[in-house]
């Protein structure tokens, strides 16, 4: 029973840390614009995050090294610093996007000023992190995030042409820059770097060792698998409802409409609740990721498990990054725009995070018998090549499509 409970924890942790505002925005828009045609990019992204999360979790369990420990060690101080600066910019932008998303969802549920909800959401996150232990934080957002299953129910309830849905999983290309922009966006939203920064550091927070490798593998396969199903359901639900009508959703509220269309007010509330927990969890994950990275790179004491008393610099840097994100959102930039920029810039920063993980996961002098086997190594290098191509294409596509505006 204990192992079932442990695996369940892993699964919900993965769901809570995987789906975020990037997936909500890009996947819903992708469905509305291209129907089911971009499902293959969801599948590709989900497989990628599963491969790299498993690898980073394995490195954390075997050698006790979270991602930025590995980056500093493998890339040295200079290149490591470049990776740190790039990751921090992307992570803080991501926190801002998630906070903005939280405020929009709260605004849909209750009636008050947007800026008030931004500040309220930030205070709520501080209170949750202060009051709950690490496992409690994961469970709260993980269990809550399972409300997103309403999108799977919605997709089934809609009764789409399953042949067409299946066809969407076969990679296909349109002769359009906007389509390519969405391929990059949907793929990158699944592979956001904060996810592995947080996941590997979380492994250390939870005291993982070699006996945790089975749990790590199950998280990667079942947890991210479930996350992938939810991400695909967003595309299908949106593709079914919005695509034939030619609606292009430009705000976060539209994401929940397919659930309302299928199940009325209950569906809408379940969807908004699920989105609230997903985005809230991602806000915690991405803000923690920013502080984990800084502390690990500089050798500071870090971790929620140490408490603010033993890791004051870590704690204060977290509060600082969160405050910075609040200021970005309050500056008046549309949170959906912040989301798109954070996801596209993340693609550029991705190789700096994933190359060192791949190098150490394959190094037998650190990993011993748990080093990458031929399948992990092949998948790792394959994904790195895909990421490198997308990293080069991301910014030109962002400019050519006017940030997805066409």
């Amino acid at each position, binding site marked *: 029973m204990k192992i079932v409970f442990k695996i369940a924890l892993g699964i919900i942790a993965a769901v809570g840390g995987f789906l975020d505002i990037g997936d909500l925005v890009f996947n819903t828009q992708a469905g509305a614009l291209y129907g089911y045609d971009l499902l293959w990019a969801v599948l590709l992204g989900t497989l990628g995050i599963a491969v790299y999360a498993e690898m980073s979790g394995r490195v954390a369990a075997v*050698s*006790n*090294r979270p991602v930025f*420990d590995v980056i*500093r*060690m493998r890339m*040295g*101080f*200079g290149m*490591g*610093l470049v990776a740190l600066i790039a990751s921090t910019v992307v992570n803080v932008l991501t926190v801002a996007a998630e906070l903005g998303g939280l405020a929009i969802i709260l605004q849909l549920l209750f009636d008050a000023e947007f800026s008030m909800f931004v500040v309220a959401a930030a205070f709520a996150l501080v209170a949750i992190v*202060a*009051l709950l232990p690490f496992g409690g934080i994961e469970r709260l957002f993980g269990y809550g995030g399972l409300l997103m299953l309403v999108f799977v129910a919605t997709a089934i309830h809609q009764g789409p042409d399953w042949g067409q849905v299946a066809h969407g999983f076969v990679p296909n290309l349109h002769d359009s820059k906007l389509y390519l922009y969405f391929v990059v966006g949907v793929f990158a939203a699944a592979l956001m770097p904060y996810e592995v920064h947080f996941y590997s550091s979380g492994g250390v927070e939870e005291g993982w060792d070699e006996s945790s490798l089975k749990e790590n593998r199950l998280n990667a396969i079942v947890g991210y698998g479930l996350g992938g199903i939810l991400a695909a359901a967003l595309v299908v639900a949106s593709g079914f409802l919005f695509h034939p009508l030619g609606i292009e959703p430009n705000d976060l509220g539209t994401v929940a409409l397919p659930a309302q269309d299928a199940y009325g007010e209950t569906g809408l509330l379940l969807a908004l609740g699920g989105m609230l927990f997903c985005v809230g969890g991602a806000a915690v994950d991405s803000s923690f990721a920013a502080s984990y990275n800084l502390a*690990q790179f*500089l*050798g*500071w*004491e*870090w971790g929620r498990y140490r408490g*603010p*008393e*033993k*890791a*004051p*610099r870590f*704690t*204060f840097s977290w509060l600082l990054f969160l405050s910075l994100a609040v200021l970005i959102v309050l500056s008046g930039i549309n949170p959906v725009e912040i989301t798109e920029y954070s996801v596209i810039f993340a693609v550029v920063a991705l190789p700096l995070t994933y190359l060192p993980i791949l190098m150490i996961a394959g190094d037998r002098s*650190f990993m011993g018998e748990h080093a990458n086997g031929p399948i992990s190594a092949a998948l790792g290098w394959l994904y790195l090549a895909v990421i490198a191509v997308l990293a080069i294409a991301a910014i030109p596509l962002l400019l050519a499509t006017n940030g997805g505006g066409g």
Partner: protein
Amino acid sequence: MSTGEPIFIAHRLLDEQILDSEGRRCGRVDDVELIDDPPRVSAVLVGEGLYPRRLPVRLRGIARRLAGPERWGANAVRVPWQAVDRIDDVVHLRGKAEEHGLGHGDDPEDWMVRRLPWN
């Protein structure tokens, strides 16, 4: 790994996490001091004052201006090799961080952290 064995400095020592005898994280190996011929490590050097020398030559000047000069015992600390107990996934020191002048930044007395409501 004992501290008497030959090691690849760049591979297993430089940039590694340092832990004191109580398992407290107290910095990284920012540089190493070598003596003799053939060279051997006589000390590990730790602190933010050493960061500029780790950057490419062109950036060192501006980084030095930002970080200030190396002040030994303050922003640059020399930990003699004898104080290194062993190296595995991290570098373990003999004795507590404060005995070596490390870990000041995480001293709760220096921070408002004590005044936070949950403490």
